[in-house]
């Protein structure tokens, strides 16, 4: 039994084109005519399809349709492929450039590998510093920035005796205020056999000035230690 004529049926069975081509059975044709008399907007569809047929006939008369039917020549297809490949290379280059730009690299990381972007060699260690709590107002570490890109390795010995297996380290700017958030915060750092916690700073992103390094055992309510770092600009050659 034939389904009732509705918009879905008309679309699914290409009724408009078949009607204009006089390919509908009598019952289907009568049902469609009744439908479009009730739904005048269907005439737009009829008219658009009639125009499509007219346009195709005109293009056939002028020979343009035959040209449209031919697959594009190989060199044009090759041209498109080459253009797509070029575009992909440009995009990849931009992504890599952005990933490697100093401003997109982290200020500090648990390892040297994490200081550089994708597909880049780890930074060489420019200097190593052991950071211990001193009993004076002097900085706990004096760091001179290298004249070229490099990683600054810090080995920090927490003063608070703890059995915590992991530490969290935050780097702050003292002048920013006590409540200000850290410039960078690293968690899950394991101390070595001597109890030192290691981290790396990216010299290219570090500005001269004073910094507070807060080291605390991970866990609720754990207190930590603060270390004052003074970073100086590279020495003149």
């Amino acid at each position, binding site marked *: 039994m034939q389904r009732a004529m509705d918009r879905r049926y008309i679309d699914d069975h290409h009724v408009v084109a078949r009607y204009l081509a006089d390919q509908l059975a009598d019952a289907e044709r009568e049902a469609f005519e009744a439908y479009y008399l009730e739904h005048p907007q269907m005439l737009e569809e*009829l008219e658009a399809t009639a125009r499509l047929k007219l346009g*195709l006939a005109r293009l056939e008369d002028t020979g343009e349709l035959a040209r449209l039917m031919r697959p594009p020549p190989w060199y044009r297809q090759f041209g498109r492929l080459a253009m797509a490949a070029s575009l992909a290379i440009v995009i990849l280059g931009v992504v890599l450039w952005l990933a490697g730009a100093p401003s997109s690299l982290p200020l500090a990381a648990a390892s040297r590998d994490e200081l550089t972007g994708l597909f880049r060699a780890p930074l060489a260690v420019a200097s190593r510093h052991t950071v211990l709590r001193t009993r004076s107002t002097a900085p706990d570490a004096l760091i001179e920035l290298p004249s070229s890109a490099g990683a600054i390795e810090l080995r920090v010995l927490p003063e608070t005796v703890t059995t915590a297996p992991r530490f969290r380290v935050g780097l702050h700017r003292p002048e920013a205020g006590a409540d200000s958030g850290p410039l960078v915060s690293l968690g899950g750092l394991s101390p070595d056999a001597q109890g030192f916690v290691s981290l790396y700073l990216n010299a290219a992103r570090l500005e001269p000035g004073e910094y507070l390094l807060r080291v605390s055992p991970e866990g609720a309510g754990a207190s930590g230690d603060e270390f004052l770092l003074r970073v100086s600009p590279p020495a003149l050659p």
Partner: protein
Amino acid sequence: MSDSAEASAPAVRADGRTPQAQELGTLFARHYSGLLALLVRQTRDTALAADILSDAIETTARHLESGRIVRPEAAAGYVYRVAMNLLRNYRRNIDNRPERRADPAVLETLPAGLGLDEALEERLARQVWEVVADLPTARDREIVKRFYLDEDDKAAICRDLGLSPVHFDKVVFRARQRLKALLEARGFKKSDFFSVLLVCV
């Protein structure tokens, strides 16, 4: 016919044309050039195509006047239906009536030449060119040509080109939507037609 019916009957001009037929002819020429073009292409005879359309318009106008068409907005559909029936009859050689000639007044409202404005045909051809060229593969373009121009049926096209019916539907749907968007972007909408028709009826 009663006096009151005569009083309410639409005015018939001295040349026998009713205002409705005149208006319908003008509006069809302006808004439904696709139908006339189809008739010309199918009959290969400009005069006969104009006859068919004229006949359909006259019939519809009479039905409007007599009240057989209650909803004026359905008038365009009636013209379409009558024209398609006449075309079918012609094609089947059942009701080819050479003695029925077009109303010259209605014919005057139709574009000259092949039955269509040359510029309009060219504009349509450019729009269809865009639609066909936009199809991603030569095979998709072949589908559209065979279905709409050659009027091959879906099953035969799918069989010949090794297509799934779903792929066929997608291609035809895409072509139809694209053309519709192009036509609408160039102001092809029937809302104006209906509002004018409501006024004239």
